């Protein structure tokens, strides 16, 4: 049995690839901004218009929203809902699952439509799924970036003196 939740990390190259994919999506869909959040509620990336809200709080609530809906899906006999849509008067958001590890959140307004966002999102979800599967596979085996905390016991002690 594993001790607890596995650790994962991503490099600047991963970050570059994620950003590129999301920028193209925003351009094609005319959505305002896209955020990537891991299932534990940690913000991975923000692309597009800088959000005016607190992105950390937003990320936490997104993960909670998604996992609550996962459980609702199970209660009604579905495996999961792989996407969620919240519609507002001006602003709407669309959430999609990426490789069961990460959630893509897209914010858009009436400069575009749900149909276009959904259409353009398919390709991005595929791209990002491949990318994150590779990242998580790497975290589980060789090829992971070196552990920056390895041998840092003394420094950790000092931090908490």
């Amino acid at each position, binding site marked *: 049995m594993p001790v607890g939740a596995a650790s994962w990390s991503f490099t600047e190259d991963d970050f570059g690839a994620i950003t590129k994919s999301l920028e193209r999506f925003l351009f094609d869909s005319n959505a305002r901004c896209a955020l990537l959040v891991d299932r534990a509620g940690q913000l991975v990336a923000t692309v597009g218009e800088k959000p005016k809200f607190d992105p*950390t709080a937003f990320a936490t609530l997104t993960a909670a929203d998604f996992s609550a809906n996962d459980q609702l899906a199970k209660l009604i006999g579905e495996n999961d809902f792989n996407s969620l849509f919240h519609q507002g008067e001006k602003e709407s958001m669309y959430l999609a699952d990426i490789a069961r590890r990460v959630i893509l959140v897209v914010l858009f307004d009436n400069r575009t439509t749900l149909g276009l966002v959904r259409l353009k999102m398919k390709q991005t979800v595929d791209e990002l799924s491949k990318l994150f599967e590779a990242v998580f596979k790497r975290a589980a085996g060789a090829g992971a970036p070196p552990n920056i905390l390895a041998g840092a016991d003394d420094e950790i002690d000092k931090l908490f003196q």
Partner: protein
Amino acid sequence: MSMINYASREINCKIVYYGPGLGGKTTNLEHVYGKVSPDTRGKLISLATETERTLFFDFLPVDLGTIRGFKTRFHLYTVPGQVYYNASRKLILKGVDGIVFVADSQIERMEANQEAMQNLYDNMSEYGYDLTRMPFVIQYNKRDLPNAAPIRDLQAALNPGWEVGDPSRMRNAPDPYHQGEQLVEQLTSGEWVERAPYFDAVAVNGDGVFDTLKAVSKLVLKSLA
């Protein structure tokens, strides 16, 4: 599920405060929120009922300093302690890196403490996490109340020690927080046991709140090192 972000040079870890209803989990986070300088913490988010009982969770992000050029960000969560919120309580445990169990010291709450502890073990093992092998500390809160049970009784009920299976760990480990006590020791029966570090607290006054947080954070970072 700790996350190391090499692009923004951050280490993100998740700590969950668990325990019986009204034990003082939310109070712990409120104290941290009030004491930490605003540039090292984010917003405190509380999803609560109108009577201030936690409904889904409280959330507070805090930065605890820099190691090797990486900012250490801890995401603190509380769960709803009330028994019937188990479905949401379990969701919050997903991806947890460290646990604080906030026990209510009042004698009347002994059974509620034990039920919450059992519930924690059960929910953790449903995720495939082994509580006895991950960063875990216990806080005995409400030490100010006249009906608080003696620490010895609380330890016996909630932290009696789990069996150590790994031979390399079968040696005395002094408790750094209590002189003369051991975290790992051999019982007269010959069995080796390990206990979680524990702290006394009066969370409403802030006593013990940071000692608890520092201890669990340190264990989390060490588990990554």
